């Protein structure tokens, strides 16, 4: 430990530094305590399970910055600044201690290491590179997802100051207190060289300037942090660690009976009805806007922006409701002259909640693992089950499911007509079936999708898979009902279906609808329904790989595959449909720019298959344009809603003849037809 060298000033300066430091820490602690108390107002939730998976997220996504690097320019500049912070914070601590403890200059042991000194030197200017890149992005490139605001520029400015002052401090020290490790600090050497001609007191003055600037900014940052979006440097890692590790497609199940008995809400209408983790989400938002950039609603001009949803909730928590939650009386001078705001209705407009298609693109894009969709559904639950505010089209859809077991009110008794006409057995007729083919409402009633059901049935027959359907005992899986917010009706549907399935002792299920796949496969577990559910692309790919299906009939065409959200982002099923398509001789697979994890929703999820888009452009039209961009001759998909949406769009754009749309099953069925069937 060096004992000679520059000082920060006369002895009173030390006292001053102690006062400033203690003051900054106290102010920070007060703000932090306030935030913690506000978070504690939220409902409890266990987020400490599955530590292995959580650690992995910490390593890969926080330290590895994986999600950020999805956008390379932003990713690189953030990596520089993030790692720069992690490394240089050691150096900043050194500077502070130097002021607090007279005679302290460097960390013991590592302070003199060349590698350590090199890291401080290197990141000081690398961070500056990052800051310059960031400023350029904000001011010149101006991506729409970033809001150009003072907070952002102030933070960048402060970071730049920290780094510049660092270099000044190091440069001056090289002159005033030379050490062997100085050889490891090229950038600081340059600064030192510039100061060579100056007399020693001048250099010490520069040192002090650098030091005081650095420490003031550092302490100022500490105080400023809880007030700005830069708070994320503290909350991002915990928020990522505490992310949801439940299956992605699973919405939380409420014990409705218990809730009503205890007079508890069944939806969220007040900020404290969210869980503490939801609230932590809101204060962790970095305003990067990647969620908004990926959101189909935002892209197509709807009112919903996932970013502003989160930020509006944050403001509501920290400003509108903070006094009440902390038990303080409102300002006596009547400064709060605005009427109390309803969180759902005033702060978050109903339409914003309706706009969501539950595609989860926002959640997958978010670098700090904020969960937008469950919050939206929670608030929808309030609107539908408590406030009775609901889109008229959805009201009709709910009535239809309640009355007829399908969203269109076709008669229950007709659900299996398509099967009868095609000789497809029910479980009663074929009790030894290995697979239950869960047809779903679209596959049963919608003329276009009945064709897909038939195609899948033929494929299963050809492959020698013993299967059967439930027939008229099948009723709507309840997916649109749950996404729209009617948890009560959903649970009725789920209980009924589970009873039917368990009564038949069903173990394996195959379905052609990703929504049924998700609901029956993951969400029915909460109701005692535990089945091995596969989506047809999984089974078909397996049958092809096993040689039980032999696609021999050529299809010489370029095919663009559209990833349905509810098997893609929800369940990471990307490869199997592609394998199945590639097995068809002659098929040339073309990927749309937004494919796999980044595929854009067709616009039908979250209940939107059952209502109109009234503002902006239609999501399915935009997605069709994305397909047309790669000029395929066919579009393939694996979801009845995606199919309907795509065909709708091709009709609107008058390209039905040049761009046929088909389900993977249909294409495979054609290709595996035996010559006597052609």
């Amino acid at each position, binding site marked *: 430990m060096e004992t000679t060298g520059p000082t920060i000033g006369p002895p009173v300066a030390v006292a001053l530094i102690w006062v400033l430091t203690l003051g900054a820490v106290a102010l920070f602690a007060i703000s932090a305590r306030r935030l913690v108390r506000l978070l504690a107002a939220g409902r409890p939730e266990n987020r400490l399970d599955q530590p292995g998976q959580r650690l992995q997220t910490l390593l890969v996504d926080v330290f590895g910055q994986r999600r950020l690097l999805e956008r390379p320019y932003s990713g690189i500049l953030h990596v520089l600044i993030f790692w720069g912070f992690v490394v240089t914070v050691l150096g900043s601590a050194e500077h502070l201690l130097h002021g607090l403890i007279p005679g302290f200059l460097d960390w013991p042991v590592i302070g003199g290491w060349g590698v350590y000194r090199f890291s401080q030197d290197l990141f000081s200017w690398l961070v500056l590179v990052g800051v310059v890149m960031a400023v350029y992005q904000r001011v010149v490139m101006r991506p729409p997802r970033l809001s150009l605001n003072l907070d952002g520029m102030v933070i960048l400015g402060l970071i730049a100051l920290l780094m510049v002052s660092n270099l000044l401090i190091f440069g001056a020290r090289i002159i005033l207190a030379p050490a062997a490790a100085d050889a490891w600090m090229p950038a600081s050497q340059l600064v030192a060289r510039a100061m060579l001609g100056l007399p020693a007191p001048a250099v010490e003055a520069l040192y002090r300037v650098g030091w005081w600037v650095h420490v003031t900014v550092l302490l100022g940052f500490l105080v400023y942090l809880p007030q700005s979006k830069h708070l994320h440097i503290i909350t991002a890692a915990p928020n990522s660690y505490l992310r949801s590790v439940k299956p992605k497609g699973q919405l939380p199940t409420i014990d*409705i009976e218990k809730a*009503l008995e205890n007079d508890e809400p*069944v939806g969220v209408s007040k900020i404290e009805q969210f869980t503490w983790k939801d609230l932590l989400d809101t204060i962790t938002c970095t305003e990067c806007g990647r969620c908004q950039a990926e959101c189909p609603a935002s892209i197509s001009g709807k009112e919903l922006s996932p970013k502003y949803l989160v930020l509006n909730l944050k403001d509501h928590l920290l400003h509108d409701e903070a006094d009440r939650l902390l038990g303080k009386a409102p300002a006596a001078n009547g400064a709060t002259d605005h009427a109390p705001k309803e969180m759902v209705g005033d702060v978050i407009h109903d339409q914003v909640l309706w706009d969501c298609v539950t595609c989860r693109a926002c959640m997958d894009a978010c670098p700090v693992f904020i969960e937008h969709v469950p919050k939206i559904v929670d608030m929808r639950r309030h609107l*539908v*089950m*408590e*406030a*009775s505010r*609901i889109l*008229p089209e959805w*009201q009709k859809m*709910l009535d239809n499911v309640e*009355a*007829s077991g399908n969203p269109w*009110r*076709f*008669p*229950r*008794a007709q659900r299996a007509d398509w099967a009868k006409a095609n000789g497809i057995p029910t479980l009663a007729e074929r009790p030894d079936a290995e697979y239950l083919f869960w047809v779903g409402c679209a596959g049963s009633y919608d003329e276009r999708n009945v064709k897909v059901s038939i195609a899948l049935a033929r494929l299963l027959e050809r492959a020698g898979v013993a299967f059967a359907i439930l027939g008229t005992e099948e009723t709507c899986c309840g997916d649109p009902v749950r996404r729209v917010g009617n948890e*009560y009706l959903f649970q009725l549907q789920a209980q009924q279906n589970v009873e039917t399935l368990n009564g038949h002792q069903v173990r394996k299920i195959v379905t052609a609808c990703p929504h049924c796949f998700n609901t029956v496969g993951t969400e029915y577990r909460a109701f005692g329904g535990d089945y091995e559910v596969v989506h047809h692309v999984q089974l078909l790919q397996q049958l092809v790989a096993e040689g039980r299906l032999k696609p021999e009939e050529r299809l010489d065409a370029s095919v663009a595959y559209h990833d349905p959200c509810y098997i893609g982002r929800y369940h990471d099923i990307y490869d199997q449909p592609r394998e199945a398509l590639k097995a068809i001789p002659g098929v040339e697979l073309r990927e749309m720019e937004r494919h796999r994890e980044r595929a854009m929703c067709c616009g039908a999820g979250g209940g939107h298959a059952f209502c109109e888009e009234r503002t902006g452009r239609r999501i399915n039209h935009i997605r069709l344009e994305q397909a047309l961009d790669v000029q395929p001759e066919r579009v393939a998909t694996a979801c009845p809603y995606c199919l309907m949406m795509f065909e709708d769009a091709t009709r609107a754009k008058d390209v039905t003849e040049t761009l046929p749309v088909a389900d993977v099953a249909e294409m495979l069925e054609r290709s595996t037809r035996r010559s006597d069937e052609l």
Partner: protein
Amino acid sequence: MDIVVCIKQVPDPEIPTSQFKVDEVAKRVVPPEGVAPVISTFDLHAIEAAIQLKEQHGGKVTVISLGPPSVRDALKRAIAMGCDAAVQLEDPAFEGGDSYATAVALAAAIKKLGTFDLVLTGRQAADWDSGQAPAALAELLDVAGAVPVQKVEVRDGGLYVERVTEDGYQPIDMPLPSVLGISNEINQPRYPTLKGIMASGKVPIPVWTAADLGLSPDQVGASADRIVLQRLFVPVRESKCEFIEADTPQEMGEKLAQRLREARLI
């Protein structure tokens, strides 16, 4: 405000035409299997209008329905939407009643409930489409009435009502009490809240017979009919499409016009 809403349960009007069947001997409609009856559409609007008025002016909404035990589901739905009380009228003597005969029982029930400020019902029921209930009730209760109504507001101890006309509406000032036949333009019936659905299971729904209403059997049901159903049938309809043949599209258009005229469709 004490509001009474008279509702009727009807076979689901949305069943596809091909499913619609009639028992010509019994002169009644045979509902398809597994399709539950529903509250007649305009009656839903009447329930909503009543609840909105209660929310604005305070008071109580009682809903009445005449019919077999299945109407209890209709009454529960009304309670789930926000009505406070319900009464079912059931008696073999009520059977075979037309709109008027049914209104006799309803009016007696309304009088038995006590004083009322307003009686609301749908402008017509989605089964027989006769639209006579509002007028019958007004006449039997000897109060003012209006049908079809697209707007009702309480003003100065009376009502401001807008009657639907072909090209707009007619404003009328009406007293309390009155009977109004509600039309669909007035509102959007609400979806019941969860609390409402739960509460509807707990509200007791008394059943009143003709005797409870002080009516003798010849005063209600078929004996009191003002119109008599002679025949009910499903007109034979060719399900095959008849294509109009002609040499030119123009001629086809003309022939079509003639066919439509012959069929009294235009």
